[in-house]
C-alpha cells in the first residue's frame, strides 16, 4: 500500500490523500455511478449506449467480449472504429487517425467487408503472435502506443491468467484508445479485471447482449440489438419452400433450377 492510502483519514492530509485516491480512474466504487468521468465513444447503437453507464464504449480500459464464435465484430465496433480513425461525421473525432489493430484474429480479415463497413484497409493491421507470451507482450506494446487507436484482440489458445489480464488492463490506461479482448463465453465465468464484460450471442432475429460487469453499475443488463441487414432471413426464402436446405441441395445438386432472387454476375 502506498503512502496515500496509509495516511490517517480525518486529518487534512488524510482527506486530501483520499480525494486524490478517489480521483483515480481505476478505483472500483460499486454501483454508486460516482466515478471519475472517463472518455467514451459512441457505439453506433443507441440501445447499447443507454445500457452503458457512460453512454458509449469506455476508452482507456479493458473491454471483454465473451462469444462462442467470433461473430458480429464489425457490427459492434465498426462505428467506433470509423470515429477513432477520423472517418465519422462527428467533428469531435476529426483528429483521430491511429491504427486499428487486430491482434491474433480468428481468421483472415476480409478486405471487402472492411471496405463495406466503411473502414480503410490501409489503417487496419493484423498481428499474429505465435504464443501467449507474445500475445501479452504485443497487447501491452500496442495498448501503450499512441499510434494504436483501437485494439481488437482474440485470446490465444492458452488461457490468460488473472495476472496477465491485469497486465493488459494496466497497459490500457496509458492511452485513450478502445481496447477489446474477445474470449470464449466460458471465460466470462472467471474473474477478470476488465472494466466491462459483455456476453454476445447471435439469435434468430437479434443480437443478444448480456452486460455481466460494468464499472459503476453492479446490476446486470440485457439487451437485444438489431441484426445487420445481410443477417436477416430473405423474405422470398421464408415465404416459399426454397429456404429449406434439403430443397436447395436437391435443386443445386441435381438440376439448376431457377431460385427466386437469383442474380447472375458476369465474369
Amino acid at each position, binding site marked *: 500500500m502506498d503512502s496515500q492510502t496509509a495516511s490517517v483519514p480525518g486529518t487534512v492530509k488524510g482527506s486530501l490523500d483520499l480525494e486524490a485516491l478517489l480521483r483515480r480512474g481505476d478505483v472500483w466504487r460499486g454501483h454508486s455511478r460516482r466515478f471519475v468521468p472517463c472518455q467514451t465513444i459512441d457505439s453506433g447503437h443507441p440501445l447499447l449506449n443507454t445500457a452503458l453507464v457512460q453512454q458509449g464504449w469506455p476508452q482507456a480500459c479493458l473491454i471483454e467480449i465473451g462469444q462462442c464464435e467470433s*461473430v458480429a465484430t464489425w457490427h459492434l465496433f465498426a462505428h467506433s472504429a470509423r470515429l477513432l480513425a477520423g472517418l465519422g461525421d462527428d467533428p469531435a473525432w476529426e483528429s483521430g487517425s491511429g491504427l486499428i489493430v487486430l491482434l491474433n484474429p480468428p481468421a483472415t*480479415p476480409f*478486405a471487402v467487408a472492411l471496405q463495406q463497413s466503411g473502414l480503410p484497409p490501409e489503417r487496419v*493491421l493484423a498481428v499474429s503472435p505465435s504464443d501467449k507470451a507474445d500475445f501479452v507482450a504485443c497487447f501491452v506494446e500496442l495498448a501503450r502506443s499512441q499510434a494504436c487507436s483501437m485494439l481488437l484482440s482474440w485470446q490465444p489458445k492458452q488461457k490468460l491468467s488473472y495476472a496477465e489480464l491485469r497486465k493488459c488492463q494496466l497497459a490500457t490506461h496509458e492511452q485513450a484508445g478502445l481496447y477489446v479482448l474477445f474470449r470464449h463465453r466460458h471465460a466470462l465465468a472467471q474473474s477478470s479485471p476488465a472494466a466491462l464484460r459483455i456476453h454476445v450471442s447471435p439469435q434468430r432475429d437479434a443480437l443478444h447482449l448480456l452486460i455481466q460487469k460494468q464499472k459503476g453499475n453492479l446490476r446486470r443488463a440485457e439487451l437485444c440489438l438489431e441484426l445487420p441487414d445481410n443477417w436477416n432471413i430473405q423474405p422470398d426464402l421464408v415465404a416459399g419452400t426454397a429456404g429449406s436446405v434439403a430443397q436447395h441441395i436437391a435443386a443445386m445438386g441435381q438440376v439448376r433450377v431457377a431460385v427466386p432472387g437469383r442474380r447472375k454476375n458476369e*465474369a
Partner: protein
Amino acid sequence: MKRDYLWMALRFPYLPLEVLGIDIRKDACVIASQHKKISFASLPCANDGVRIGMPAATARLLSNCEIRMRNPEQESLRLTALSDEFYNYTPYIKTHCLNFESEYAQQGLLLELSRCISLFKGLEQLTQLLWRVLERSGLYYCHGLAANSKEAWLRSWCDSDTREALFNLPVEKLEEFPDKIDLLKKTGFLVLGDIRQQLKVGGAHAFKKRFGSDFVEYLYDIFESAALESEEQNDLFSPSLFNATPLVYSPVEHYRGELQFDYPLNSIEWLAMPMRQLADDLCLYLVAHQQQCFLVQWCFYDIYHNCEKMELRCERIHRDSVLLLDLSLIQLEQQGLPFEVDALELRCLKTAEVDFVMESLPIQKAAGISGKLLAEQEKLTARIRARLGEKNVFKVKYVDEHFPELANAKVEIHDSADAPLQGPHRYGNRPDWIFNTPVAIGKHQNQLHWHGRLHLIRGPERIEGHWWDSAAARDYFVAMREDHVRLWVYNDLLKKEWFVQGVF
C-alpha cells in the same frame, strides 16, 4: 578562373596477381580470362616468353605456370584501402578503372596534389611520403605526373618524364577509346607523336570529322601543355576558361563502440543501460556524419573473450536511439544471453548518406495524419515486427478478382492497401472473416452440417469465371447454423459440393 593542377597517376600493373598473394618476382603464375587467355603474367612467366593475350595452354607449356582466375572484389578492396591511406595527404583521389570487365584493364589511382604541396613543404617532401605509403603496401607500381589526369595516366607508361617519351607511346595506350585504336593504326598513326604531328600540320578539324569531337577533346587534354607551349592552338584547341574541380574522396567510416564492465553481467535488465549508452553514441555519430544505417551488430564478450554476435536489421536508424534500443532488447529477449557478458560492442559497418525525405517533419501532414503520429506508427510496427517477424504483421488488400479467396491479399505494412471495390464485391453480402481455403461441408440426411445444422437464409449470388484457368461457378448463400451463427457458404456447381468460406 582556370587553375593549374598537378595530377599523379599510380598504375598497378600486377594488382590482380598481388591481391591473390602471388610474389610477382618469384612465382610463376598467370591470370587467365574467361576465354582462357592470359591477361596478366608474373615476371618469371614473362621471362619465359608468356605474353598477354596468349592462350593459357600455350603459357603452361612455356613456363609450367599456375593459372588463376581474377578476383575483382579483392582488387577493389585493395585500392580502397590504399585510397584511405592517401587521404592523409590529399582529399582529391580518383580510382582509375576504365573498364573493369576488360580482360587486360589495368587499374590505379589518380591523386591531385597541387593544393597539398605547400602543406607538406614542397613536392619533393610530399612524394617521399607517398612513396613510403606505396612501399608499405608492397604493390608494384608505375607513376606519372602531369597537369591533367589523362596525361598523367599516359605518362605512367613512359620510361622518362620527357615530352618525347609521351610522344613515343603506342596508340594502344589510348585505352579510353578502344574502338579508335584500330582505326588510328589503319590510318597509319602508330605512336602519339604521329597524331600530334598530324594535328600540327593538318589541324584538328579533319580529326574531329573522322574520330569525333569527344576523341579530339581527349587529345586536347593530353597535348594541352605541349600545344600551349608551341602555340598550336586553333578554334578546336582553344582551352576552356574553367575546369571542373576534382571530386573530394570520402573514405568509408565505421562506427564501433565498446564498453567493458567491472564484473560480468548476467541479466538483460542490467545490460539495458550500457546498450542504451552505445545506442545513443551511435545516433550521435550518425547525426554528426549525416549518415543513416539499416543494420547494426551487437557483440557480447565473456571473460575469455568468446564473442556472440547479434545482428539487428531495421527500417532506418538515424537519430532515434530509443527505437534501436527497443528492437535490440526485444531480439535479445527472444535470443537469450549466451553467457555472462563482460564486454559489449556495437558495430555499424555500413552506413549511407542520410535521406531526409524519409524523415517526417513535425509540421508534415499526410492524409490527415500528423508527422509525429506517423513516426510513432513506424516505431510501433518496427517493434512488433522485430518481435514476431515480418510475416506475422500484415494488412489485407482488395484485389480485383471474382473469387473471394483471390480477392483478398495479404500485403506488407509498407505496401498500400487502398483499392476501390469492383463488380459484385461492391454490393454483395460479405463476411467479416474469410477462410483462404474453403472448408468442405458435410451432408447428413440431405442437410448441410458444419459444426451444426445449417439453414440457408439469403442468396444465392452467382460468382463464376476463371474459364482460362480452371472454370468454376459458385452459388453463394448466407447460412444460419443451429446456434444462429451466420456463415458464408457456397455450392460449387461443377464439383457439386458445398463449402463454407467465411463467418459473419
